[in-house]
């Protein structure tokens, strides 16, 4: 990392840490949401950007993490344990699913992952005894003030985002990242050159799943109430992809930049076009795809974006 990038990072980090002192609850909520999506986008990026496998069902892990954590928490266990449990479940599920699905490529992989999220939703909906089914699951209330809660969850999500960022950076700069890069460009050649592609793909998939599950678990605790159609919503699968595409797929900071840019845009759209919200979102997606093939760096300032995105 260059001196400039380091300085910029420190400034941003300081600003983020100080945010609760200067912002109100609404801003904190927005910031927490942005951080959560940044985590999801970075998680997606490991499989979709580095390895080149178009993952369309990260909501499966998000929802699984949300419910795993929520069930443990509402059984009276401490919140940290609930989150840890969610990560463990997400990891195991990712390993098993990875074995099955990573044999598929391209379209088949994409849609299979999409359908998995739907299937999990169906199963969660049906398992009423444990999950509350369609009536949702309420999580025990802390008894803290709204401000205290907002600040708490902001810092928690910030911590998760930081961990995810550091992990992504480590992956990108060592053998795993190199291997994934090879796999993305030419999987057959990667095999020939000595890369155990199955193993590396599963590792990448597991990282994605674990981080997404963690984000889901924290989300559940944060919102206090979850239901299947909320946490398994296909938009949780698609938005992170848009963000990664926007900021620069396959780079370290790209997903983060994309998350910030997207949510800023989303706020504007939401305030002005409430009823057309999804429609306008769709429209922006279409514009992005048709006119900005390399994400934001298509707009110009190529070198700025590339430097910003690849730490």
């Amino acid at each position, binding site marked *: 990392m260059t001196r400039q990038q380091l300085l910029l990072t420190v400034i941003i980090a300081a600003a983020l840490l100080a945010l609760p002192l200067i912002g109100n609850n609404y801003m904190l909520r927005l910031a927490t949401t942005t951080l959560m999506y940044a985590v999801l986008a970075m998680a997606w990026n490991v499989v979709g950007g580095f390895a080149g496998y178009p993952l369309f069902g990260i909501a499966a892990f998000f929802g699984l993490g949300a419910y795993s954590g929520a069930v443990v928490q509402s059984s009276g266990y401490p919140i940290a344990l609930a989150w840890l449990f969610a990560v463990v479940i997400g990891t195991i599920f990712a390993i098993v699913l990875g074995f099955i699905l990573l044999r598929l490529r391209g379209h088949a992989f994409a849609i299979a992952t999409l359908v998995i999220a739907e299937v999990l939703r169906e199963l969660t909906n049906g398992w009423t005894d444990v999950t509350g089914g369609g009536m949702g699951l309420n999580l025990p209330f802390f008894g803290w003030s709204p401000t205290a809660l907002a600040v708490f969850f902001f810092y928690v999500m910030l911590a998760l985002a930081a961990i995810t960022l550091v992990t992504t950076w480590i992956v990108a700069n*060592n*053998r795993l990242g*190199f*291997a994934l*890069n*090879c796999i993305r*460009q*030419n999987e*057959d*050649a*990667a*095999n*020939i*050159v*000595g*890369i*155990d*592609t199955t193993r590396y793909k599963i590792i990448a998939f597991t990282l994605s799943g674990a981080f997404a599950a963690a984000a889901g678990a924290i989300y559940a605790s944060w919102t206090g109430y979850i239901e299947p159609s909320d946490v398994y919503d296909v938009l949780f699968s698609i938005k992170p992809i848009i963000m990664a595409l926007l900021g620069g797929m396959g780079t370290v900071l790209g997903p983060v930049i994309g998350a910030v840019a997207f949510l800023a845009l989303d706020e504007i759209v939401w305030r002005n076009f409430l009823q057309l919200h999804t429609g306008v979102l769709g429209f922006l997606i279409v514009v992005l795809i048709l006119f900005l093939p390399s994400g934001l760096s298509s707009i110009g300032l190529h070198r700025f974006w590339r430097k910003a995105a690849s730490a």
Partner: protein
Amino acid sequence: MTALLQLKNVSRSFGGVRAIHNVSLTLEPGQIVGLIGPNGAGKSTLVNIITGVHPASSGEILHKGEPIQRLKPFQISARGIARTFQVVQPFPAMTVVENVMAGAMFAAGIASMDEARRAAMEHLAFTGLADHADRPAEQLTLAYRKRLELAKGLAMNPHILLLDEVNAGLNTAEVEQALALIRAIAARGISIVIIEHLLKVVTGLCSRIIVLHHGELIADDPAADVIRDPRVIEAYLGSRFAERQMVRQ
């Protein structure tokens, strides 16, 4: 002593088509062996089977006495059997040196990325590509791409190198350079199997030539004898020409 590589009655069918039928051969250390045959004879398929890209339908492949026919390509590479591709397959978005680093890091098992880079630079120097190290691989001309294939193969630290049509598309001067490089590689103690369909190239380079035709091994002789083998002549030039040769003899 056990042969370096041994194929015993290896066969491979795709659907109803017999691509390789009952091929048996042995490779000793330090040999340069030519593998020739008309188009469609099964040469590339045989290489694919040895390197684990396609499984053999039956038969055994022994490497230093150990069976390898069930192993995956990355495991076979790690054991020291490398190959180049006829249609060059680089990692397009990576630089030349990164392409070579891949083999060094994974097949040859170098743990540190810096060390892998150093090893890669050595291999690039050996193949004459050092100046192009940081160029994107897809920008190389065909002759240089073939050299990149060689460098990638060497980076895997092989003791057996299977070269699949390294000369396809090269002009005479480039072919000469390629052959010189191959001799230099052999001089390092690496056994080489070179697939060619130009007889001329192979006789100049190889001590021994194996001939495939319709998936079957029809000759496995010292170079000088092979070109006079009537079955080989028939395979390449047709039966009438072969008959004429027979009559003359």
